[in-house]
């Protein structure tokens, strides 16, 4: 569940990136680009329809434009391509069902890692008795020691 929440937070961040580019031409072109960036250029190996210089990608951008002009919403345009090509055409797997795994596992991993680091820190910190630095050293001296230590460090 935790992963899910993180994921939602992340998704909320997306428009920040996408909306960053100031409009180049008409607003419509930006929508075209936004949609094209989500789709895989089918003749290329791993480029988006927005990025690919290929003729096929060019035609696909044309189709996106045409559909938007025909008053399709961006979601409908994307759905049209998914209907024709399958989920494969989406450059990022829709976060539902089995695909949730790829979205959440990295963060679950980080969570588990954090817990492991904390546990290790706890376990290792009791391994040996610590000798606390005597607090009686005056601060100036202490600063000097620290500074010289810092200089010696790699």
């Amino acid at each position, binding site marked *: 569940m935790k992963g899910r929440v993180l994921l939602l937070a992340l998704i909320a961040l997306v428009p920040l990136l996408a909306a960053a580019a100031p409009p180049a031409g008409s607003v419509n072109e930006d929508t075209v680009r936004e949609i094209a960036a989500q789709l895989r250029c089918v003749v290329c190996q791993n480029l988006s329809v927005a990025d690919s210089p290929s003729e096929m990608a060019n*035609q696909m951008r044309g*189709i996106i434009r*045409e559909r938007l002009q025909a008053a399709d919403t961006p979601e409908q345009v994307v759905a049209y391509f998914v209907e*024709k*090509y*399958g989920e494969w055409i989406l450059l990022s797997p829709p976060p539902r069902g089995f695909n949730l795994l790829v979205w959440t596992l990295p963060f679950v991993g980080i969570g588990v890692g954090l817990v492991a680091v904390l546990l290790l820190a706890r376990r290792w910190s009791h*391994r040996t008795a610590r000798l606390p630095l005597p607090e009686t050293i005056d601060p100036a001296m202490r600063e000097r020691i620290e500074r010289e230590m810092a200089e010696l460090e790699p």
Partner: protein
Amino acid sequence: MPARPAGEGPADVDSDAFERAPTPSARVPGPRNPKPSSEGSWRWTKWAIPLSVVPLLVLLAYGFRTDPRAIPSPLVGKPAAPFSIALFDGGRLSLDDLKGKVVVLNFWASWCVPACYDEAPVLERGWRTYKDRDVVVVGVDIQDTEEAARKFIRQFALSFPNGPDPTGKISVDYGVYGVPETFFIDRAGRIRKKHVGAVTEAVFTGEVERLLKEGS
């Protein structure tokens, strides 16, 4: 364990001394220390590290059995998208005109070497054999120049209807991602099979006969 030679660097000396002096007190210093039982469990759990690699290897080995270029089409079994195409010979052809017939819809390009060149004679022979039995072969030329396409048609003396798809609309409607791709559409207008790569005699005859047998 070989004897330690003289003349090792200082770092090595003390690290090694550290390594080799696992005094009992070093192992059992505090109250929270791992109990002997955890020493025992380590013996078994440690093999989990190498074993965790196994599923990954299995998955990668599975990868050999798949072809990253073969993407199953979600359109098989669905009604074929209607289209209307301007033919090279003039005139138009639309899918609606072909209702009740078995349609072999072939996407090709003149630059598609050698697959399109391999299948062109097959398609032409198939068209001649079956055209009187309610079978239509339709060629859609994609991402091509008209000049090169006409040359291709002349080269193979293609007589079935052929036309370009200048906007890519038909290609996308059929989920085409490369050439050649061939769709077999039944009499009811449903896509029954998508063939990727050059069509062979066996594929053509097999599919067409199957769809013809179904009757109308």
